[in-house]
Structure formats: structure tokens, C-alpha cells
């Protein structure tokens, strides 16, 4: 990859040029650039975006556009990768349709090399367990924005135990009302306060560790 191509990818993601992304991806593939090389630049770019988001220099609109940009750029490469860093099930619990955070997490994990099975929003609790078994997932991730549906997260964990997969599969949770205190109380292996932190969390879980990463120092 030459410097111009690097800059083109980086600029597209950092500046959220979502309408140019697919065309750039196609041109890179046509030029013989493989997906791993593109992925490395995407990680550089998302590290920049993630840092600026955490510093509150940018906010959700730019983060979403950056995520859409890299996902679109990778469209021409879909199916070309044969190895993944891990397999993750992601979904928003039943009776909750707030999926913006989950969508960001899915995008972030994909660019960092994980195979993500996105179950979507309003997902029946049994489906998390069924899909974890069917795909041989390393991690089940579930989220909710609503205080009313927070108890569903604990129910998923119980279902994983009943199904006999909890020893093999880590369970992580997230969503605006979730805190470290809540995550530990219900017995989740991990919690991340935002999509950027989820990448770090998944890395820890894949090593067999537990981790609780709050987005704000005030949250516990």
C-alpha cells in the first residue's frame, strides 16, 4: 500500500466520508490491496476517532459516520477473511429497541478482527444462548438502554448456566444505565461504558480475564 492509499483510507474514516467509502474499498481491492492491510489502516483511523471521542472532541454523529465509513469500505472484502480473533454474539435484549450503541460495538469489533453475529434488537433471551452454542462463540454480549429491562441481562446469564456453556463462554454487558456495580452484582464477566472501551474489554475477556471499564470516572 502506498502513502496515498493509506491517507485515502485514513481520511475517509476520520472525517466520516461515508458516501465515498465503498468506492474507496473497491479501488483498493482492484489495486490488489488485501483486507489485512486495509484493516491495519482502519484500526489506526479508528484509534484516532476513538481517542477524540473519549476526549469529547467529537461526539456520536462523527463516531457513527466513521463506523459506517469503515464498514462500507470493507464491503468489497466481505467473505475474504478466513481467520478471526474471536467470535462474539451481540444483541439488545427483548423489549428494548435502542440499538445505536450495539451497532457501534459490532462495527468496532469487526474492524478489530472479530467475527460478530449481530442478533439485532428486541432479541428473545433464549436466542443469545442458542446462537452462542450454534456458533461456538467465545463471548456473548448483551445490552439495554432501559432500566426496566436491566434484569433481562441477569436472566441471560442464568440461561447460559442452565445450558452448560457459562464455563466456556464469557458474558459481557453494556448500555447507558449499566454500571460496574450492576455488572458485578449479577455476575457478568465484563462491562464497558462505550463502544471504544468494548474493544479493550473483549481483548481482556479473550485472555480469560474479567474487566469492568467505566466510561466516566464518576461511574461505579
Amino acid at each position: 500500500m502506498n502513502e496515498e492509499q493509506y491517507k485515502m483510507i485514513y481520511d475517509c474514516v476520520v472525517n466520516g466520508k461515508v458516501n465515498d467509502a465503498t468506492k474507496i474499498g473497491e479501488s483498493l481491492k482492484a489495486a490488489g490491496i488485501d483486507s489485512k492491510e486495509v484493516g491495519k489502516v482502519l484500526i489506526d483511523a479508528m484509534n484516532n476517532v476513538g481517542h477524540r471521542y473519549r476526549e469529547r472532541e467529537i461526539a456520536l454523529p462523527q463516531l457513527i459516520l466513521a463506523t459506517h465509513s469503515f464498514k462500507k469500505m470493507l464491503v468489497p472484502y466481505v467473505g475474504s477473511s478466513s481467520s478471526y480473533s474471536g467470535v462474539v454474539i451481540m444483541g439488545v435484549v427483548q423489549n428494548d429497541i435502542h440499538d445505536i450503541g450495539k451497532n457501534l460495538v459490532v462495527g468496532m469489533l469487526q474492524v478489530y478482527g472479530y467475527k460478530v453475529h449481530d442478533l439485532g434488537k428486541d432479541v428473545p433471551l433464549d436466542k443469545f444462548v442458542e446462537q452462542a452454542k450454534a456458533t461456538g462463540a467465545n463471548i456473548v454480549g448483551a445490552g439495554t438502554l432501559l432500566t426496566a429491562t436491566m434484569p433481562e441481562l441477569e436472566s441471560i446469564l442464568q440461561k447460559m448456566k442452565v445450558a452448560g456453556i457459562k464455563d466456556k463462554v464469557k458474558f459481557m454487558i453494556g448500555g447507558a444505565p449499566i454500571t460496574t456495580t450492576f455488572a458485578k452484582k449479577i455476575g457478568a464477566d465484563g462491562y464497558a461504558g462505550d463502544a471504544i472501551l468494548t474493544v479493550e474489554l473483549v481483548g481482556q475477556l479473550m485472555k480469560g480475564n474479567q474487566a469492568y471499564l467505566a466510561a466516566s470516572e464518576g461511574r461505579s
Partner: protein
Amino acid sequence: MKTRMNPRERVIAALQHEPVDRVPVSGMAWTIGAIAGGYSTKEYSQSGSKMAKGQIAFWEKTGVDLLHPTSDMGQTAEGWGVKMRYENGLTPMLDVFAVNEPGDWEKLRPLDPLKDGRMHVTIDAIKEIRSKLGDKVAIMPYVPSPLTSATHVCNMEQVMMDIVLSPEPLHKGLSVMSDSIVTYIDAIIDAGADGALFATTRASGEITTEDQYREFGANYDYQILKAVRNQGGNNILHVCGVSPHFELLANYPNANGVNWWDRGSNLPVKQAKVVYGRKVCLVAGLDQTTTLILGGPEDIRKESFDAIEAGFGDVTGMILSPGCEISPRTSFDNIKAAVKAAEEFGIGK
């Protein structure tokens, strides 16, 4: 200051930074009113009388000073064409959005609060609560700001993208929604409410930058708060998130209170009191995500005392409150414990 104030006087005085006989308490009870009244959430959200009875039942069970007769986001959003889904015991959910592409923003039309959506449910509930309880309670229903409403009529992800990619159509939609919200606030005041719990929910750094919120949020919020019938500051801003744009919110016109999730954000009550305590009434202190659903009355007593000591040193300018709507699974005894703690603390030593 009167030795013993009624709840309505207590809430208004706290908002006006006048001395109070104890810190007033809100339970942020919206959907849980259905459970308190023994109704399904669908019944509660579609009948002013049932909403009123549910809210009154919550008041009887807990003794709070401030009620927010509200059921769900669809009360206004349905007027613009959103379809809701009802699951008993849960807040009704946005199911089908009305705005699905940028051009749809321009199709939104002004609403009549007495006819469109389910705003009339809250209006009718206010009349009945005021008629039955008089000054025994202050009333401030949830009213979504234009940018908050935008994320009710359209997928939030799309709204966030429209801020950057399609700002002009979005502005047109926000403008139409602003006019409707002015008429809604006027209608709730006419019905007997003391003000609005005005939801500026997207005014937080992890959602919008301060500049973005100024352009797409505060710009319209200001126009509304300056235009509504109730002037004098008896409105409370409600913000979600971990990095609220508090400096911006503290300088809003005609809104003396700010409600935020102090236990989960980067701004605890103690710090907010020091920096903003003279400008705004702090409406916070109870953690709806942890203590209120996982703890018991003694935990609530401790959390209440901690908050009151941090935010009530000048014997005004605070309403003890959760940072957002409480879960329908919250124990009534826990809210009652917060009221008891406020009474026990009184005006302090």
C-alpha cells in the same frame, strides 16, 4: 419561610432558590404509575383518569412532593405518525418510526395537544390530580424537546447522521416540532401543571458536542422556553448521559432546575453545587440504576443523606430525585425511604 410548607410551595421555593422546610422529593415516576394504580401500561397510557389514579396511588404509597404524569415517548411522537408497542409492566416502546429518510422531516406537521397523539392523556391527568390533591403535590409532566422528539420520530442513528449529512431537512423538522411543543406546554399549564420536566436528553458530550447541541438543540429549546405561557423559571431540564453540557443547561432561560444522573455522570452533586448551585436547582441524588433497584430502604436513607449533605447546604436549590425515570420494578418503599430521609434531615444542623 413557613415552618411547614405544603409540597407545591416546597418544590417552587426550591426552584426559586428560596429557603424550604426540607428538601423536596421527586420519584421520577412515569410508567410505574400504572403498577401503583393496578393498571396495564396500555390502559394507563391511554386514559387520563387512569394515569391520574396511578400517579395519585404512587403519591399515596411514597409521599413524594413532585409528580410527573407521563407514560411514554409516544404521547407526542404518535401525533407525528410513530407506532408504539405495548408490553405489560414495561414502558411502551417506539416500534415504527415516522421519519425514515431526510426528506420525511419536511412532512411533519404542527400538532394540536388536545387532539393529536396522546398528549391529552397527560392534560386530563393533570386536571384530575390537581382537582383531587390541590397543593399537596407539585406537577411537572415530561415534555420532550425538539431534538429529543426527533429521536422519537426517527431512529437515533439516522438523526445523528442527519446532523452532519442532512442538516437543512432536520432543521425544518425541528422547527415544526418546536411550535407544537410550545402549545403542549401551554396546555399543561392551563390544565394546572406548575411547569414542565423538559427533556433535553441529547445535551451530553457522548451524544452531541456542545456546538452541535447549541445548533440542533438549545437553539430550539431557547425559543420554546421564551415563548411558553409560564415564565419565571419553574421548569426543570432533564438530561441523560455521562457528560452533560451542564454549563449550557445552567444558562437556559426560564428553567431553574436541572435533572441529571449525578451518580453515573462526571458531575456529582457536590461539585455541581459548588459550580452551579447559585444558578440552578439541582434535581438529583438517587441512583435509579443501582441503589433504587438493588438496594433497600436503609441504602436509600444513606444515599439520600449523602446527596442532601452535598447539595442542600444553603437550605434550598435542591430536589432529591433519581436521575431519570425509575424502573417499574423499583420498590415503593425505597422511594418512601427517600422522603423519610428528607424529613429526618429537615434543614440540617
